[in-house]
């Protein structure tokens, strides 16, 4: 490397140090420090109070949003950045989330009991909304249990309507807003039928709340959960779905996130910001100790390329034939739907920095980037398996399979391993099984396709993107033995 026409490298040592400082090893953090918070331009819509539904795959940042919006200082950072003044005047509370908090919402067992008793999910969520919307000492908040609150809501529909109206007016008079957040909705119950019923009920309530001007709710949902037809089978459901904000991470968004981190590294951030400024222009504005990435480095692929290639050289091999680092890295972390999780992206960069020899003239060596992608692949699997424990069970028998392959090869591997029996013998599973398990192996496959692990080719053969293939130990089929 280092020929005429090569990108002038950022000082490799300090750049690697900035990476180590600002990206923790391993799976990383759910609630980043304010200086590391990065909101892609398109995601900013998720902040809007009139967008009640936010969709994102596992790892897209739903929980980051959920906790960011509840944290006063993080919310201020986001509000300043996007000039969203309304955001500073909001009371935020949680209507459902990962951790049990019975003062704020009923837990999964309580919800299951209500559903089993035939309480309509709409009433359950109305009770949660009413609870958050009323004053201390007022019904239903003053009632001792969720059972009583739900019963009260069922018995007093008029009171509930008046309560919400009065709250809306009061908020408006004080120039304030209220926002109630719902996350990890796959954990509302222990079987899919109940989860989907509860989700549908919540979406109906979200639709009703659109009539209020100061009282808002927002649900963070995985797109696969909306795939079941029953969820959207209520009048005007499309109004909710069409207005959904998509939390997918495009290429520019991922690099924006990376640069935001590096520019805010405690010791080597300043050097990184200086190099960026010299290379790509733009200035980093500072507020409360956080440096905001210049506009051009947020959305301009050409400028981002010039920065990243100053870190990683311009090619993914000795010549251009294996592609360009800027597009190669996200391309090889994408699932079958083209989605990349920011966590795996950052992890790949971190590993690449660790794996690059200290005397290499750029911060990242292309072989080290490949290594980074392999390790990030493991991190992505761990991330997905947190939401979908069953994935490890269905993928284990597919190890050493080669893709593209026929569905019958996959089915056979599952049958030999007794995968279906394994699921069906679990009497009361801790976690949700595959959603379409009742359709046997075809259902399993459709679940995997929906989650982006497999894609179907034009002739129905199955392919698996590298990000999953590598971690699950599948090979890639070739017509010839290696010639080297």
């Amino acid at each position: 490397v280092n020929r005429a026409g090569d990108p002038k490298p950022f000082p490799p040592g300090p750049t690697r140090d900035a990476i180590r400082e600002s990206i923790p090893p391993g799976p990383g953090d759910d609630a980043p420090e304010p200086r590391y918070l990065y909101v892609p331009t398109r995601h900013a819509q998720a902040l809007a109070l009139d967008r009640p539904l936010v969709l994102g795959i596992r790892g897209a940042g739903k929980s980051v949003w959920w906790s960011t919006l509840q944290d006063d200082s993080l919310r201020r950072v986001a509000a300043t950045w996007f000039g969203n003044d309304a955001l500073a005047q909001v009371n935020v509370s949680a209507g459902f989330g990962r951790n049990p908090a019975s003062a704020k919402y009923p837990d999964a067992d309580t919800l299951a009991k209500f559903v089993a008793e035939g309480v309509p999910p709409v009433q359950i969520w109305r009770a949660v909304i009413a609870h958050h919307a009323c004053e201390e000492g007022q019904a239903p908040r003053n009632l001792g249990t969720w059972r009583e609150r739900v019963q009260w809501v069922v018995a007093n529909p008029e009171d509930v309507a008046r309560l919400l109206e009065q709250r809306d007016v009061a908020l408006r008079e004080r120039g304030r807003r209220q926002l109630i957040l719902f996350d990890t909705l796959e954990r509302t119950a222990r079987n899919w039928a109940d989860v989907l019923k509860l989700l549908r009920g919540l979406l109906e309530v979200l639709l009703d709340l659109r009539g209020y001007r100061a009282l808002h709710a927002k649900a963070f949902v995985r797109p696969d959960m909306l795939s079941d037809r029953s969820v959207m089978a209520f009048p005007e459901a499309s109004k909710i779905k069409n207005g959904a904000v998509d939390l997918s991470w495009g290429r520019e968004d991922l690099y924006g996130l990376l640069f935001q981190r590096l520019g805010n590294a405690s010791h080597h951030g300043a050097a990184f910001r200086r190099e960026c400024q010299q290379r790509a222009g733009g200035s980093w504005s500072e507020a409360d100790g956080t440096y905001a990435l210049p506009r051009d480095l947020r959305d301009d692929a050409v400028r981002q390329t010039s920065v990243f290639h100053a870190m990683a050289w311009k090619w993914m091999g000795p010549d251009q034939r294996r592609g360009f680092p800027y597009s190669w890295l996200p391309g090889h972390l994408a699932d079958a739907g083209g989605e990349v999780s920011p966590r795996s992206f950052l992890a790949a960069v971190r590993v690449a920095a660790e794996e690059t020899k200290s005397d290499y003239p750029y911060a990242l060596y292309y072989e080290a980037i490949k290594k980074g992608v392999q390790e990030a692949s493991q991190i992505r699997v761990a991330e997905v398996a947190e939401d979908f424990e069953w994935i490890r069970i269905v993928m284990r028998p597919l190890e050493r399979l080669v893709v593209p392959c026929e569905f019958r090869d996959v089915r056979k591997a599952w049958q030999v391993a007794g995968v279906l029996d394994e699921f069906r013998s679990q009497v009361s599973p801790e976690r949700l099984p595959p959603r379409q398990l009742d359709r046997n192996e075809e259902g399993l496959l459709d679940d995997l396709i929906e989650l982006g692990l497999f894609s179907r080719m034009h002739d129905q053969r199955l392919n698996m993107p590298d990000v999953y293939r590598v971690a699950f130990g599948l090979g890639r089929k070739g017509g010839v033995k290696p010639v080297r």
Partner: protein
Amino acid sequence: MGAVERHAVVTTVKPVRFDEAWRRAQAWAHQRLAGCLGQTVLVRDVFGRVRVVLDDRGGTSDLPTEEQCLELAQEFVAELQHYAPKEARDVFLRASQMFAPQDLFASADILPATGAAGVAGLRTLERLLVGADWLRPPVQSESRVPRLTLHGIKGGVGRSTAAAVLAWRLAAERGRPRRVLVVDLDLESPGVGTTLLRHEAQPDFGVVDWLVEDAVGQAGRDLVDSMWAHSELAQGAGAIIVVPAVGRAREGYAFMPKLGRAYNDVVRRDGLAQVPTVATFPERVATLLQHLEELHEPDLVILDSRAGLHDIAAMAITRLGATSLLFAVDTPQTWDAYRLLFESWREHPERALAFRERLKVVAALTPETHTSTYLDALRDHAYDLFQATLYEDAAANDTAAFNFDLADDAAPHTPLRIHWARTFQQFDPVRTPDALTQEQLSSGFGDFVSGVHELVFGEGLP
């Protein structure tokens, strides 16, 4: 009675066809010549008949005796029937009986039998009238100036139009206008020269003239100087230098008699050494390109290649160190035709090493409707082709294998896209420069031009 029986046998025996004979010859050698495979070359002549050549130059201890050979030869004839020599005594040939054994054993066309029916250790030699270039090593593995071959297995896919647009855009590159040399190697169906030059601007001579003059030793600088012209499409600092296949049509200028002599190999007697050397057609074209490159110092050479499986295409793709764009429309005919070609690379993957990383599919006539479905199907079909014939088997953690994910943008099978529009049918930028707007050109050829720019210059268009 006996005669009737024999007649019955003859009519029920199925003839051994061409492909089957080759498989049988290899299997037979594997079984019957197991002890001396390393000294054995199966030679298939221009009619497809197979002979067994034994290399006895290093000793005969492992080889069958003359007597054994005669017996084996009869077996061989029974096995291969019409694809064995007529006489059993002609089946075997020993190096010591040959006039110049080194010509055969040192031939660049000798290949290990590595394919599907292949036998480890055995070597084969194909005597072909045409088509041998597809498996020959490059004349030049790397040229100083990047070369780009445009090839379509089927004609009529807008290849010459794409060549012209590409030259035009690169010559007008923002901040760095390029010098582009366009050479029309499609001798039997010249095109790109006419697109880029008005009739009166066309040079007196073309590639075909150089080939006949070179054969008699007078393809000097003055000829090279009268076979190119600047296209008026290039403005400012950029340049499009066009070398057409033929000279300007005019009274007294013949073409067909030259074409019929263009593909000759020629004997050269130059330099101090008195030993004559043979310059093959591809070597001669490589020499012409070198002359042109030295004269014009271009940033890129675009070679408009003959369509199909013609030797010109073979040379331009595999033997000139070029990056090759394989134009495709998503039809079974396209993929079947490419498959015929790629199969021979699958049989001899080591011969594809020199160029397999330099191939790139182009979606040539991408339709205006159902575009993404069309492109997905085309990509899948291209993937099938490459995966079955050129990509290597790769285990999960193998990052070095020549193998690519279906969705990998940098993969040879992932197409560059040319979006076809009816207006491009009238593409004639020199004579009707305003027929197309810049927007139309960009939407049609934008992805193609920027993709090619990345491939040949290693960076995106500014």
